[in-house]
Protein backbone atom coordinates (compact mmCIF):
# COMPACT_ATOMS: atom_id res chain seq x y z
CA UNK A 1 0.00 0.00 0.00
CA UNK A 2 1.10 3.55 -0.65
CA UNK A 3 2.03 5.91 2.11
CA UNK A 4 -0.82 8.34 2.86
CA UNK A 5 1.10 11.29 1.44
CA UNK A 6 2.63 9.48 -1.56
CA UNK A 7 1.28 10.47 -4.98
CA UNK A 8 -1.23 8.00 -6.45
CA UNK A 9 -0.25 5.79 -9.37
CA UNK A 10 -2.57 6.39 -12.31
CA UNK A 11 -3.14 4.67 -15.62
CA UNK A 12 -2.81 6.69 -18.82
CA UNK A 13 -3.24 6.17 -22.54
CA UNK A 14 -1.28 8.24 -25.03
CA UNK A 15 -1.14 9.00 -28.73
CA UNK A 16 2.27 9.86 -30.10
CA UNK A 17 3.80 10.59 -33.49
CA UNK A 18 3.81 7.14 -35.13
CA UNK A 19 6.70 8.10 -37.40
CA UNK A 20 9.09 8.32 -34.45
CA UNK A 21 7.29 5.96 -32.11
CA UNK A 22 10.31 4.30 -30.45
CA UNK A 23 12.07 7.58 -29.81
CA UNK A 24 9.02 9.17 -28.19
CA UNK A 25 8.26 6.09 -26.07
CA UNK A 26 11.84 6.13 -24.79
CA UNK A 27 11.49 9.78 -23.82
CA UNK A 28 8.24 8.94 -22.02
CA UNK A 29 9.99 6.22 -20.03
CA UNK A 30 12.61 8.77 -18.98
CA UNK A 31 9.75 11.04 -17.89
CA UNK A 32 8.54 8.36 -15.51
CA UNK A 33 6.05 6.30 -17.52
CA UNK A 34 5.97 2.54 -16.92
CA UNK A 35 4.79 1.31 -20.31
CA UNK A 36 2.31 -1.58 -20.15
CA UNK A 37 1.34 -1.89 -23.84
CA UNK A 38 2.44 -0.34 -27.13
CA UNK A 39 0.65 -0.11 -30.48
CA UNK A 40 3.21 1.38 -32.89
CA UNK A 41 0.87 0.89 -35.89
CA UNK A 42 -1.62 3.44 -34.56
CA UNK A 43 0.87 5.39 -32.45
CA UNK A 44 -0.79 4.59 -29.14
CA UNK A 45 0.44 3.16 -25.86
CA UNK A 46 -0.68 2.76 -22.29
CA UNK A 47 1.12 2.79 -18.97
CA UNK A 48 1.16 3.91 -15.37
CA UNK A 49 2.96 6.63 -13.47
CA UNK A 50 2.75 8.81 -10.41
CA UNK A 51 -0.06 11.29 -10.70
CA UNK A 52 2.34 14.21 -10.07
CA UNK A 53 4.32 13.25 -13.18
CA UNK A 54 1.34 13.67 -15.53
CA UNK A 55 2.22 17.20 -16.72
CA UNK A 56 5.69 15.99 -17.68
CA UNK A 57 4.24 13.47 -20.13
CA UNK A 58 2.33 16.04 -22.12
CA UNK A 59 5.51 18.10 -22.41
CA UNK A 60 7.46 15.32 -24.14
CA UNK A 61 8.17 16.16 -27.77
CA UNK A 62 6.11 13.98 -30.13
CA UNK A 63 3.26 13.37 -27.70
CA UNK A 64 -0.07 14.18 -29.36
CA UNK A 65 -2.45 13.32 -26.52
CA UNK A 66 -2.51 12.06 -22.94
CA UNK A 67 -5.72 10.79 -21.34
CA UNK A 68 -6.48 9.02 -18.09
CA UNK A 69 -7.09 5.33 -18.74
CA UNK A 70 -10.77 4.93 -17.92
CA UNK A 71 -12.83 1.83 -17.46
CA UNK A 72 -15.75 1.00 -19.70
CA UNK A 73 -18.50 -1.05 -18.07
CA UNK A 74 -21.48 -2.67 -19.76
CA UNK A 75 -24.79 -3.15 -17.95
CA UNK A 76 -25.16 -6.45 -16.09
CA UNK A 77 -25.73 -9.43 -18.37
CA UNK A 78 -29.43 -10.15 -18.24
CA UNK A 79 -30.38 -6.49 -18.30
CA UNK A 80 -32.64 -5.88 -21.29
CA UNK A 81 -30.90 -2.55 -21.96
CA UNK A 82 -27.40 -3.02 -23.30
Amino acid at each position, binding site marked *: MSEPDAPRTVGVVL*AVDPDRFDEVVEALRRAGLRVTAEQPL*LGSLSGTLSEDRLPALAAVDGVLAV*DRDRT*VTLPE*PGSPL*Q
Partner: protein
Amino acid sequence: MNGPVSGPFGGQPERAEARGNEPTYTGRYVVLLDQAEARQGMEGLRSAVGVQSVETVSGADPGEATEVLAASGASVLFDNLGVAVVDTDPDQRHALVTAAETSSSVVAAEPERYVYALMITEAERTVTHSYPAYRSDDDQIARQARAEVTAHRGPTWDETTCTWGLQAIRANFSTLTGRDVKVCVLDTGVDTGHPDLAGCLEETASFVEGEAVEDGNGHGTHCIGTVAGPADPADAPRYGVAGDARVLAGKVLSNRGSGTDGQILAGMSWAVSQGAKVISMSLGASVEPGELFPQTYEQVARRALRLGTVMVAAAGNESRRPGVVRPVGRPANCPSILAVAALNKDLATAFFSCGAINGEGGEVNVAAPGVGIFSAAPGSSYQSLMGTSMATPHVAGALALYAEADPEMAADALRDRMLAGAYPLPQLAEDVGSGLLQVP
Protein backbone atom coordinates in the same frame (compact mmCIF):
# COMPACT_ATOMS: atom_id res chain seq x y z
CA MET B 1 -50.71 2.45 -67.94
CA ASN B 2 -54.27 3.26 -66.99
CA GLY B 3 -57.24 4.35 -69.01
CA PRO B 4 -58.42 3.37 -72.45
CA VAL B 5 -54.95 3.14 -73.94
CA SER B 6 -53.70 0.01 -75.62
CA GLY B 7 -50.30 -0.37 -77.24
CA PRO B 8 -48.15 2.53 -78.25
CA PHE B 9 -50.95 4.12 -80.26
CA GLY B 10 -53.75 5.17 -78.02
CA GLY B 11 -57.39 4.76 -78.69
CA GLN B 12 -59.82 7.61 -78.40
CA PRO B 13 -60.23 8.99 -74.93
CA GLU B 14 -63.23 10.79 -73.68
CA ARG B 15 -62.35 14.41 -73.31
CA ALA B 16 -62.38 15.39 -69.69
CA GLU B 17 -62.78 11.84 -68.42
CA ALA B 18 -63.74 11.97 -64.80
CA ARG B 19 -61.30 11.44 -61.95
CA GLY B 20 -63.41 12.55 -59.09
CA ASN B 21 -64.37 16.01 -60.27
CA GLU B 22 -61.07 16.50 -62.02
CA PRO B 23 -60.57 15.57 -65.68
CA THR B 24 -58.00 12.89 -66.55
CA TYR B 25 -57.38 13.76 -70.19
CA THR B 26 -56.83 17.13 -71.79
CA GLY B 27 -58.17 16.10 -75.18
CA ARG B 28 -54.80 16.67 -76.81
CA TYR B 29 -52.37 13.97 -77.89
CA VAL B 30 -48.74 13.58 -76.98
CA VAL B 31 -46.81 12.28 -79.99
CA LEU B 32 -43.31 10.86 -79.75
CA LEU B 33 -41.52 11.46 -83.04
CA ASP B 34 -38.39 9.96 -84.50
CA GLN B 35 -35.97 12.58 -83.31
CA ALA B 36 -33.92 12.45 -86.52
CA GLU B 37 -36.92 13.61 -88.55
CA ALA B 38 -39.17 15.29 -86.02
CA ARG B 39 -40.15 18.17 -88.28
CA GLN B 40 -41.03 15.88 -91.18
CA GLY B 41 -43.13 13.70 -88.85
CA MET B 42 -44.94 16.73 -87.52
CA GLU B 43 -45.59 18.01 -91.01
CA GLY B 44 -47.11 14.65 -91.96
CA LEU B 45 -49.43 14.73 -88.97
CA ARG B 46 -50.40 18.32 -89.67
CA SER B 47 -51.54 17.58 -93.17
CA ALA B 48 -53.29 14.31 -92.26
CA VAL B 49 -55.22 15.65 -89.30
CA GLY B 50 -55.70 19.24 -90.28
CA VAL B 51 -53.82 20.83 -87.43
CA GLN B 52 -54.33 24.56 -87.62
CA SER B 53 -51.00 25.86 -86.45
CA VAL B 54 -47.85 24.39 -85.04
CA GLU B 55 -45.57 26.32 -82.76
CA THR B 56 -42.05 25.05 -82.46
CA VAL B 57 -40.27 25.34 -79.12
CA SER B 58 -36.57 24.65 -79.31
CA GLY B 59 -34.98 26.19 -76.28
CA ALA B 60 -35.30 25.61 -72.59
CA ASP B 61 -37.26 28.77 -71.88
CA PRO B 62 -40.12 27.67 -69.64
CA GLY B 63 -41.99 30.90 -70.23
CA GLU B 64 -42.15 30.37 -73.96
CA ALA B 65 -43.42 26.79 -73.67
CA THR B 66 -46.01 27.68 -71.06
CA GLU B 67 -47.39 30.49 -73.17
CA VAL B 68 -47.65 28.37 -76.28
CA LEU B 69 -49.28 25.42 -74.49
CA ALA B 70 -51.84 27.62 -72.83
CA ALA B 71 -53.02 29.01 -76.17
CA SER B 72 -56.27 27.39 -77.22
CA GLY B 73 -56.09 25.19 -80.29
CA ALA B 74 -52.34 25.29 -80.50
CA SER B 75 -50.15 22.33 -81.27
CA VAL B 76 -46.58 22.42 -80.07
CA LEU B 77 -43.48 20.69 -81.37
CA PHE B 78 -40.69 20.39 -78.82
CA ASP B 79 -37.97 20.22 -81.40
CA ASN B 80 -35.10 19.19 -79.17
CA LEU B 81 -37.13 16.42 -77.49
CA GLY B 82 -38.80 15.04 -80.60
CA VAL B 83 -42.14 15.35 -78.83
CA ALA B 84 -45.27 17.11 -80.03
CA VAL B 85 -48.50 17.99 -78.25
CA VAL B 86 -51.20 17.96 -80.91
CA ASP B 87 -54.59 19.60 -80.51
CA THR B 88 -57.19 18.26 -82.90
CA ASP B 89 -60.90 18.46 -83.25
CA PRO B 90 -62.61 15.42 -81.69
CA ASP B 91 -63.64 14.11 -85.10
CA GLN B 92 -60.01 14.16 -86.24
CA ARG B 93 -58.67 11.92 -83.51
CA HIS B 94 -59.19 8.73 -85.41
CA ALA B 95 -57.31 10.24 -88.34
CA LEU B 96 -54.49 11.22 -86.01
CA VAL B 97 -54.13 7.73 -84.57
CA THR B 98 -54.25 6.24 -88.08
CA ALA B 99 -51.66 8.69 -89.35
CA ALA B 100 -49.46 8.00 -86.37
CA GLU B 101 -49.65 4.28 -86.95
CA THR B 102 -48.72 4.54 -90.62
CA SER B 103 -46.03 7.22 -90.38
CA SER B 104 -42.48 5.95 -90.02
CA SER B 105 -41.58 9.20 -88.28
CA VAL B 106 -43.98 8.62 -85.37
CA VAL B 107 -42.86 6.34 -82.57
CA ALA B 108 -45.90 6.57 -80.33
CA ALA B 109 -48.97 8.66 -79.64
CA GLU B 110 -51.12 8.77 -76.57
CA PRO B 111 -53.74 11.03 -75.06
CA GLU B 112 -52.27 13.83 -72.98
CA ARG B 113 -53.14 13.43 -69.33
CA TYR B 114 -53.50 15.89 -66.55
CA VAL B 115 -50.99 15.22 -63.79
CA TYR B 116 -52.07 16.07 -60.29
CA ALA B 117 -49.82 16.85 -57.39
CA LEU B 118 -49.86 14.13 -54.70
CA MET B 119 -50.95 11.50 -57.19
CA ILE B 120 -47.37 10.32 -57.15
CA THR B 121 -45.58 9.66 -53.90
CA GLU B 122 -42.38 11.52 -54.48
CA ALA B 123 -39.23 10.72 -52.58
CA GLU B 124 -38.94 13.09 -49.64
CA ARG B 125 -36.00 15.38 -49.93
CA THR B 126 -36.08 16.88 -46.49
CA VAL B 127 -32.79 16.40 -44.72
CA THR B 128 -31.67 16.12 -41.16
CA HIS B 129 -28.00 16.75 -41.81
CA SER B 130 -25.74 18.93 -43.88
CA TYR B 131 -26.28 17.13 -47.17
CA PRO B 132 -27.61 18.68 -50.35
CA ALA B 133 -31.37 19.18 -50.22
CA TYR B 134 -31.65 17.77 -53.71
CA ARG B 135 -29.78 14.84 -55.16
CA SER B 136 -29.83 14.13 -58.86
CA ASP B 137 -28.83 10.52 -58.28
CA ASP B 138 -31.87 8.52 -59.40
CA ASP B 139 -30.84 5.38 -57.56
CA GLN B 140 -30.54 7.35 -54.38
CA ILE B 141 -33.97 8.88 -54.80
CA ALA B 142 -35.50 5.50 -55.59
CA ARG B 143 -33.88 3.93 -52.57
CA GLN B 144 -35.19 6.68 -50.37
CA ALA B 145 -38.65 6.26 -51.81
CA ARG B 146 -38.54 2.61 -50.79
CA ALA B 147 -37.30 3.60 -47.39
CA GLU B 148 -40.21 5.97 -47.07
CA VAL B 149 -42.58 3.09 -47.55
CA THR B 150 -40.74 1.30 -44.78
CA ALA B 151 -40.93 4.34 -42.58
CA HIS B 152 -44.69 4.52 -43.01
CA ARG B 153 -45.18 0.86 -42.23
CA GLY B 154 -44.90 1.66 -38.58
CA PRO B 155 -44.20 -0.70 -35.71
CA THR B 156 -45.96 -3.70 -37.17
CA TRP B 157 -43.23 -5.82 -38.62
CA ASP B 158 -43.48 -9.40 -39.77
CA GLU B 159 -40.30 -10.98 -38.41
CA THR B 160 -41.04 -14.52 -39.56
CA THR B 161 -38.17 -14.66 -42.00
CA CYS B 162 -36.14 -11.56 -41.19
CA THR B 163 -35.74 -9.27 -38.18
CA TRP B 164 -37.37 -5.86 -38.25
CA GLY B 165 -33.94 -4.26 -37.99
CA LEU B 166 -32.74 -5.80 -41.22
CA GLN B 167 -35.99 -4.83 -42.93
CA ALA B 168 -35.72 -1.25 -41.72
CA ILE B 169 -32.24 -0.85 -43.16
CA ARG B 170 -33.30 -2.75 -46.30
CA ALA B 171 -30.70 -5.48 -45.84
CA ASN B 172 -33.24 -8.07 -46.96
CA PHE B 173 -33.40 -6.36 -50.37
CA SER B 174 -29.66 -6.10 -50.95
CA THR B 175 -27.78 -8.54 -53.13
CA LEU B 176 -24.57 -7.66 -51.29
CA THR B 177 -23.38 -9.91 -48.46
CA GLY B 178 -20.12 -8.31 -47.32
CA ARG B 179 -18.17 -11.12 -48.96
CA ASP B 180 -14.55 -11.20 -47.79
CA VAL B 181 -14.82 -7.84 -46.01
CA LYS B 182 -13.21 -7.94 -42.57
CA VAL B 183 -15.21 -6.44 -39.73
CA CYS B 184 -13.77 -6.29 -36.23
CA VAL B 185 -16.12 -6.40 -33.24
CA LEU B 186 -14.44 -5.21 -30.04
CA ASP B 187 -16.59 -6.54 -27.23
CA THR B 188 -16.88 -9.41 -24.73
CA GLY B 189 -15.67 -12.03 -27.21
CA VAL B 190 -17.79 -14.59 -29.02
CA ASP B 191 -19.40 -18.00 -28.59
CA THR B 192 -16.98 -19.67 -31.00
CA GLY B 193 -19.12 -22.81 -31.08
CA HIS B 194 -22.38 -21.10 -32.04
CA PRO B 195 -23.58 -22.92 -35.17
CA ASP B 196 -24.62 -19.63 -36.79
CA LEU B 197 -21.34 -17.85 -36.14
CA ALA B 198 -18.54 -20.40 -36.28
CA GLY B 199 -18.32 -19.99 -40.06
CA CYS B 200 -17.93 -16.22 -40.05
CA LEU B 201 -15.01 -15.98 -37.63
CA GLU B 202 -11.77 -15.03 -39.36
CA GLU B 203 -9.62 -14.47 -36.27
CA THR B 204 -10.13 -14.06 -32.54
CA ALA B 205 -7.99 -12.42 -29.88
CA SER B 206 -8.42 -11.63 -26.20
CA PHE B 207 -6.98 -8.47 -24.67
CA VAL B 208 -8.42 -9.33 -21.26
CA GLU B 209 -5.87 -10.81 -18.91
CA GLY B 210 -6.81 -14.30 -17.78
CA GLU B 211 -9.84 -14.66 -20.03
CA ALA B 212 -10.10 -16.51 -23.33
CA VAL B 213 -12.04 -15.02 -26.23
CA GLU B 214 -15.01 -17.26 -25.38
CA ASP B 215 -17.96 -15.01 -24.53
CA GLY B 216 -19.08 -15.44 -20.94
CA ASN B 217 -21.34 -12.41 -21.15
CA GLY B 218 -23.44 -12.62 -24.30
CA HIS B 219 -22.98 -9.02 -25.42
CA GLY B 220 -20.25 -9.73 -27.97
CA THR B 221 -22.00 -12.77 -29.43
CA HIS B 222 -25.18 -10.73 -29.93
CA CYS B 223 -23.31 -7.92 -31.70
CA ILE B 224 -21.37 -10.30 -33.95
CA GLY B 225 -24.62 -12.01 -34.86
CA THR B 226 -26.07 -8.70 -36.03
CA VAL B 227 -23.00 -8.00 -38.18
CA ALA B 228 -22.58 -11.39 -39.79
CA GLY B 229 -25.26 -13.88 -38.80
CA PRO B 230 -26.06 -16.23 -41.70
CA ALA B 231 -28.45 -15.54 -44.57
CA ASP B 232 -30.64 -18.48 -43.60
CA PRO B 233 -30.20 -19.70 -40.01
CA ALA B 234 -31.53 -23.20 -39.35
CA ASP B 235 -33.78 -22.30 -36.42
CA ALA B 236 -34.27 -18.55 -36.56
CA PRO B 237 -35.20 -15.69 -38.87
CA ARG B 238 -32.36 -13.92 -40.60
CA TYR B 239 -30.77 -11.41 -38.22
CA GLY B 240 -27.29 -10.73 -39.72
CA VAL B 241 -26.63 -7.78 -42.03
CA ALA B 242 -23.53 -9.08 -43.84
CA GLY B 243 -23.64 -12.88 -43.83
CA ASP B 244 -20.43 -13.31 -45.79
CA ALA B 245 -18.33 -10.77 -43.88
CA ARG B 246 -15.23 -12.10 -42.10
CA VAL B 247 -15.39 -11.28 -38.40
CA LEU B 248 -12.40 -10.40 -36.26
CA ALA B 249 -13.61 -10.98 -32.71
CA GLY B 250 -11.51 -8.94 -30.29
CA LYS B 251 -12.25 -9.40 -26.62
CA VAL B 252 -11.57 -6.07 -24.88
CA LEU B 253 -14.30 -6.36 -22.25
CA SER B 254 -14.28 -9.05 -19.58
CA ASN B 255 -17.07 -11.56 -19.11
CA ARG B 256 -18.43 -9.13 -16.50
CA GLY B 257 -18.53 -6.46 -19.21
CA SER B 258 -15.62 -4.33 -18.04
CA GLY B 259 -12.55 -3.10 -19.91
CA THR B 260 -10.06 -0.25 -20.02
CA ASP B 261 -9.17 2.29 -22.67
CA GLY B 262 -5.77 0.60 -22.91
CA GLN B 263 -7.39 -2.73 -23.78
CA ILE B 264 -9.64 -1.09 -26.36
CA LEU B 265 -6.70 0.70 -28.00
CA ALA B 266 -4.82 -2.60 -28.17
CA GLY B 267 -7.86 -4.18 -29.83
CA MET B 268 -8.08 -1.33 -32.34
CA SER B 269 -4.45 -1.77 -33.33
CA TRP B 270 -4.95 -5.51 -33.77
CA ALA B 271 -8.01 -4.90 -35.96
CA VAL B 272 -6.19 -2.46 -38.24
CA SER B 273 -3.21 -4.81 -38.52
CA GLN B 274 -5.59 -7.59 -39.57
CA GLY B 275 -7.01 -5.45 -42.37
CA ALA B 276 -10.39 -4.64 -40.82
CA LYS B 277 -12.45 -2.27 -42.97
CA VAL B 278 -14.68 -1.54 -39.99
CA ILE B 279 -14.30 -1.62 -36.21
CA SER B 280 -17.60 -1.95 -34.37
CA MET B 281 -17.60 -0.85 -30.73
CA SER B 282 -20.80 -1.39 -28.79
CA LEU B 283 -19.16 0.13 -25.75
CA GLY B 284 -18.49 3.42 -24.12
CA ALA B 285 -18.33 5.51 -20.99
CA SER B 286 -20.67 8.37 -20.18
CA VAL B 287 -19.39 11.94 -20.28
CA GLU B 288 -20.62 15.17 -18.74
CA PRO B 289 -22.14 18.07 -20.68
CA GLY B 290 -19.27 20.23 -21.89
CA GLU B 291 -16.69 17.46 -21.62
CA LEU B 292 -14.18 17.27 -24.47
CA PHE B 293 -13.72 14.07 -26.46
CA PRO B 294 -10.68 11.91 -25.56
CA GLN B 295 -7.76 13.14 -27.66
CA THR B 296 -5.95 9.79 -27.65
CA TYR B 297 -8.87 7.99 -29.27
CA GLU B 298 -9.24 10.77 -31.81
CA GLN B 299 -5.60 10.57 -32.87
CA VAL B 300 -5.83 6.79 -33.16
CA ALA B 301 -9.10 6.93 -35.11
CA ARG B 302 -7.64 9.45 -37.56
CA ARG B 303 -4.66 7.22 -38.20
CA ALA B 304 -6.93 4.19 -38.59
CA LEU B 305 -8.96 6.07 -41.20
CA ARG B 306 -5.77 6.81 -43.14
CA LEU B 307 -4.89 3.12 -42.94
CA GLY B 308 -8.32 2.11 -44.28
CA THR B 309 -10.47 1.44 -41.21
CA VAL B 310 -13.75 3.13 -40.24
CA MET B 311 -14.69 3.11 -36.56
CA VAL B 312 -18.29 3.08 -35.32
CA ALA B 313 -19.36 3.25 -31.68
CA ALA B 314 -22.54 3.24 -29.64
CA ALA B 315 -23.82 6.72 -28.77
CA GLY B 316 -24.75 5.55 -25.27
CA ASN B 317 -27.87 4.61 -23.30
CA GLU B 318 -27.95 7.29 -20.59
CA SER B 319 -30.90 9.35 -21.89
CA ARG B 320 -34.39 8.99 -20.43
CA ARG B 321 -36.62 10.52 -23.08
CA PRO B 322 -38.72 12.45 -23.04
CA GLY B 323 -37.15 14.93 -20.72
CA VAL B 324 -33.61 13.76 -20.12
CA VAL B 325 -31.13 13.68 -23.00
CA ARG B 326 -27.56 12.84 -22.07
CA PRO B 327 -24.49 13.53 -24.21
CA VAL B 328 -22.97 11.00 -26.62
CA GLY B 329 -20.42 8.98 -24.62
CA ARG B 330 -16.76 8.29 -25.27
CA PRO B 331 -15.25 7.15 -27.59
CA ALA B 332 -18.28 7.74 -29.86
CA ASN B 333 -17.87 11.46 -29.17
CA CYS B 334 -14.62 11.62 -31.14
CA PRO B 335 -15.02 13.52 -34.43
CA SER B 336 -13.38 10.65 -36.34
CA ILE B 337 -15.54 7.91 -34.77
CA LEU B 338 -19.13 7.51 -35.93
CA ALA B 339 -21.74 7.70 -33.16
CA VAL B 340 -24.79 5.46 -33.63
CA ALA B 341 -28.19 6.26 -32.10
CA ALA B 342 -30.95 3.69 -31.51
CA LEU B 343 -34.46 3.66 -32.97
CA ASN B 344 -37.68 1.97 -31.88
CA LYS B 345 -39.71 -0.23 -34.17
CA ASP B 346 -41.76 2.84 -35.11
CA LEU B 347 -38.48 4.57 -36.04
CA ALA B 348 -38.80 7.06 -33.20
CA THR B 349 -35.66 7.73 -31.17
CA ALA B 350 -35.32 5.13 -28.41
CA PHE B 351 -35.91 6.54 -24.92
CA PHE B 352 -32.35 5.76 -23.82
CA SER B 353 -30.45 6.97 -26.90
CA CYS B 354 -27.90 9.71 -26.22
CA GLY B 355 -27.98 12.96 -28.17
CA ALA B 356 -25.75 15.76 -29.42
CA ILE B 357 -25.36 17.77 -26.23
CA ASN B 358 -21.67 18.50 -26.56
CA GLY B 359 -19.82 20.33 -29.30
CA GLU B 360 -17.32 19.07 -31.81
CA GLY B 361 -17.39 15.29 -32.02
CA GLY B 362 -20.37 15.02 -29.69
CA GLU B 363 -22.79 14.67 -32.57
CA VAL B 364 -24.87 11.65 -33.53
CA ASN B 365 -23.90 10.52 -37.02
CA VAL B 366 -26.53 7.96 -37.94
CA ALA B 367 -29.40 5.98 -36.40
CA ALA B 368 -30.16 2.28 -36.61
CA PRO B 369 -32.60 -0.23 -35.12
CA GLY B 370 -31.90 -0.67 -31.41
CA VAL B 371 -35.01 -1.99 -29.66
CA GLY B 372 -36.25 -5.58 -29.74
CA ILE B 373 -33.16 -6.72 -31.60
CA PHE B 374 -33.02 -10.48 -32.05
CA SER B 375 -29.59 -12.06 -32.45
CA ALA B 376 -27.32 -14.87 -31.33
CA ALA B 377 -26.65 -15.79 -27.69
CA PRO B 378 -24.06 -18.11 -26.13
CA GLY B 379 -25.06 -21.75 -25.88
CA SER B 380 -26.27 -21.97 -29.48
CA SER B 381 -29.31 -19.90 -28.57
CA TYR B 382 -30.80 -16.47 -29.22
CA GLN B 383 -32.02 -13.43 -27.31
CA SER B 384 -33.64 -10.06 -27.96
CA LEU B 385 -31.94 -6.98 -26.49
CA MET B 386 -32.15 -3.21 -26.76
CA GLY B 387 -29.53 -0.51 -26.67
CA THR B 388 -27.30 1.63 -28.83
CA SER B 389 -25.05 -1.44 -28.56
CA MET B 390 -27.54 -3.26 -30.77
CA ALA B 391 -27.81 -0.38 -33.27
CA THR B 392 -24.04 -0.11 -33.77
CA PRO B 393 -23.38 -3.51 -35.42
CA HIS B 394 -26.14 -2.80 -37.95
CA VAL B 395 -23.98 0.12 -39.13
CA ALA B 396 -20.83 -2.02 -39.14
CA GLY B 397 -22.57 -4.63 -41.27
CA ALA B 398 -23.88 -1.99 -43.67
CA LEU B 399 -20.36 -0.57 -44.04
CA ALA B 400 -19.20 -4.07 -44.99
CA LEU B 401 -21.75 -4.07 -47.81
CA TYR B 402 -20.59 -0.64 -48.98
CA ALA B 403 -17.00 -1.88 -48.87
CA GLU B 404 -17.89 -4.98 -50.87
CA ALA B 405 -19.59 -2.83 -53.50
CA ASP B 406 -16.42 -0.77 -53.98
CA PRO B 407 -13.39 -2.53 -52.49
CA GLU B 408 -10.95 0.21 -53.48
CA MET B 409 -12.87 2.98 -51.75
CA ALA B 410 -10.93 4.88 -49.09
CA ALA B 411 -12.21 4.65 -45.53
CA ASP B 412 -13.36 8.25 -45.31
CA ALA B 413 -15.25 7.88 -48.60
CA LEU B 414 -16.82 4.67 -47.32
CA ARG B 415 -18.00 6.51 -44.22
CA ASP B 416 -19.34 9.44 -46.24
CA ARG B 417 -21.20 7.18 -48.64
CA MET B 418 -22.92 5.35 -45.81
CA LEU B 419 -23.95 8.63 -44.20
CA ALA B 420 -25.20 10.06 -47.50
CA GLY B 421 -27.25 6.91 -48.08
CA ALA B 422 -29.15 7.22 -44.80
CA TYR B 423 -32.86 7.91 -45.02
CA PRO B 424 -33.79 11.28 -43.52
CA LEU B 425 -36.07 11.06 -40.49
CA PRO B 426 -38.32 13.74 -39.06
CA GLN B 427 -36.34 13.84 -35.80
CA LEU B 428 -33.65 16.40 -35.13
CA ALA B 429 -30.15 15.67 -36.42
CA GLU B 430 -29.08 16.02 -32.78
CA ASP B 431 -30.89 12.74 -32.13
CA VAL B 432 -30.52 10.73 -35.35
CA GLY B 433 -27.73 12.38 -37.39
CA SER B 434 -28.16 11.70 -41.11
CA GLY B 435 -31.16 9.50 -40.37
CA LEU B 436 -32.06 5.84 -40.71
CA LEU B 437 -29.20 3.64 -41.90
CA GLN B 438 -29.77 2.09 -45.33
CA VAL B 439 -27.64 -0.61 -46.94
CA PRO B 440 -26.48 -0.26 -50.55
